[in-house]
């Protein structure tokens, strides 16, 4: 039998920090974003080595649960965890007990029984990550919940903009398209506002949510305003929104004619971004998508390192020592 000794207060290990999640941009501060972007940059440099794997999260378990189809986000989360040497497990809704009608709560409790360090979840309904956070002990990362939030997408977009344009403060970003149904837009508007950028939303009236200006942006139906932006961020025009009876716009053809991002509507040197997957010829002209000013592939690469940064940040006990970017002081 081990002897029980009372430990001196000053010799006790520091208390475990409160469990943190990454569910909404609303939950983070500007300092948090700066720290995450700096971590991502450090990690990107490490990716230039021949052996890309880091031992940082060895022995940790990251479970990816995807209730919606996804290529970019699910692959980059999986690779991010693997590059940090964490064990990973991926669950998709089809072929799992979800098919048998299991509730999200029960699925989460089941996965929670494996004591994962992180659960990454994508779900078609708003608030699903919050529910998982309530019923498990894991750190929860939101990989997209309905039309609500996609915070790691916003982070990778900020990272891309800062790397390409050198600043976020004062940057003018035009977000074009179906804002109403877009979690990408919601997270990005908040993230850009947090970092001091200026946001203008452009799209058909029925796809600009009523009251959206309260998020700290402007909204207009006039596509001509994109010419004044530093970055034109094109949202995916979801075909399912064009179903009979929806009538958000009369047709995709009409949408493309009025709001499609074409070379004629851009100034030379304007950067163009898109969260993917693209509908070429609808929201984005192929000539724009393939032009050197399009940062779409850069975004995908940024997705890997920013997601690595998020996992790293959640699983290390506190803010890591980060040297602030010099551009910040300028801004």
């Amino acid at each position, binding site marked *: 039998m081990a002897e029980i000794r009372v430990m001196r207060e000053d010799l006790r290990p520091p208390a475990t920090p409160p469990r943190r999640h990454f569910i909404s941009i609303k939950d983070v501060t500007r300092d948090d974003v700066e720290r995450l972007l700096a971590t991502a940059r450090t990690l990107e440099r490490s990716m230039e080595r021949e052996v890309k794997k880091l031992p940082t999260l060895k022995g940790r378990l990251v479970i990816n649960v995807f209730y919606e189809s996804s290529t970019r986000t699910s692959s980059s989360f999986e690779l991010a965890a693997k590059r940090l040497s964490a064990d990973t497990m991926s669950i998709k809704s089809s072929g799992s007990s979800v098919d048998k009608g299991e509730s999200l709560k029960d699925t989460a409790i089941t996965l929670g029984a494996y004591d994962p360090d992180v659960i990454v979840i994508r779900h078609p309904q*708003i608030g699903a990550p919050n*529910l998982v956070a309530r019923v498990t002990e894991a750190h929860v990362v939101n990989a997209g919940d309905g039309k609500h939030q996609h915070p790691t997408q916003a982070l990778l977009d900020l990272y891309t903009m800062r790397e390409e344009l050198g600043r976020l403060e004062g940057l003018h970003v035009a977000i074009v398209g179906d804002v109403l149904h877009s979690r990408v837009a919601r997270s990005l508007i908040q993230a850009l506002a947090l970092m001091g950028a200026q946001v203008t939303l452009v799209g058909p009236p029925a796809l600009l949510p009523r009251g*959206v200006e309260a998020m700290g942006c402007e909204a207009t139906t006039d596509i001509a305003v994109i010419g004044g932006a530093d970055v034109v961020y094109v949202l995916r025009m979801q075909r399912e929104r064009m179903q009979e009876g929806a009538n958000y716009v009369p047709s995709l053809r009409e949408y493309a004619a009025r709001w499609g991002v074409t070379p004629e509507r851009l100034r030379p040197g304007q950067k163009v971004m898109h969260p993917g997957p693209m509908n070429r010829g609808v929201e984005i002209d192929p000539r724009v998508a393939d032009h050197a000013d399009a940062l779409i592939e850069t975004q995908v690469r940024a997705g890997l390192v920013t997601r690595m940064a998020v996992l790293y940040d959640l699983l290390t006990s506190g803010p890591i020592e980060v040297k602030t970017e010099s551009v910040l002081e300028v801004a």
Partner: protein
Amino acid sequence: MLFVKDAPKENIFVRGARVIDPGEGLDAVLDVRIDDGVIAALGQTLDTNSHRVLDADGLVLAPAFVDPHVHLRTPGREDEETIASGTAAAAAGGYCAILAMPNTEPVVDSAATLGSLIEAARAEAEIPVGFLAAITKGQSGAELTEMGELAAAGAIGFSDDGVPVAAPGLMRRALQYGAVTGRRIALHCEERTLSGDGQMHEGEVSAELGFTGYPSVAESLMVERDLALAAYERQPLHLLHLSAWESVQAVRRARAEGVQATAEVTPHHLCLTDEAIRSLDPNLKMNPPLRSASDRTALIEGLKDGTIVAIATDHAPHARHEKEVPFEAAPFGVTGLETAFGALYTHLVEPGLIPLEVVLDRMSAGPARAYGLDAPRIVVGSAANLVLLDLNASYRITEETFRSRSVNSWLLGETVKGKVRATIAAGRLAYST
């Protein structure tokens, strides 16, 4: 038209309460003696006549509450509520009468279904309960129910609550034929092509959270239509659970023009706004949805100036597992019978937004009159329908608080002030603590 289980009337003596009956202009510290279920004496230092004594020093005695809008989930979802559990919850909330909506499984659209409910109420209802029957068969909005037979069988009114009567032509026929029965028609105003699959009020909060919006105009457009039909047919109607300021304006205007329209509002629409939904708590999901601060202000004003005559809980029990899901997957509706007074006292009376007398009137006489029932009164000779309230008691609302079979309350975990100490319904002590 109200049904309750058979039980002996009681002899009760309420000692030293502050007796408030807004309808009688009464506000005084008095003893109240109830003989055989009837108020027999009001006065100072009365003889108890060996009655059971309720010591009410420091408490308020008021006419008991009437809830014109309750879902008892019976028949069909007895796991969520029964007549016994729902009326017990109502008694604990200070109610002496409640009216149950007919959107059950099956819908109350035949005398046979109504008859079985009345029979059950006579066996198990802790306080008197009335049943509304559907306006249209199966609430499908296509064909009128046999309103005459349903009224004769004991229906207290007609409603397709939960769904609107979409076609204006059919709505007109319902008003015309409903008049023959002498019963009130109660309307759920919602233009479905505007509300769609809306989850919450359309505005700044829905824009930010990403929920599909349910705009105010989806309600007010239908309110305007129904008021226009009522004006044209010169028939009365009752409007359920108003939520939008445009609706309040429309009712105020129509009443000024002589339309016999009554309207109700829920405690949650009076106490909360759509800002609360930032918590993503499915117990804040209801139809109509919580609206903006200006809507809430209009509802409070409407209640004060009498445009809105009744406070209705829209008590809507749901099984626990149905609400333990993401907001969008959850059904609409929250419970309210046991928390209505505490919520209203805490959020409206204490902060000085609405006088206590107005709340007491709109929870009792207002809803009773809207359905043509005798209002509970504190006068000698009237049946004892009384609620004893402790305005100083603070308590935390927990799942254990509830007599309802369901716990989907927006007040879970909240500490409120204003507690029901006893309820006397139809001359019987239905609840005391």
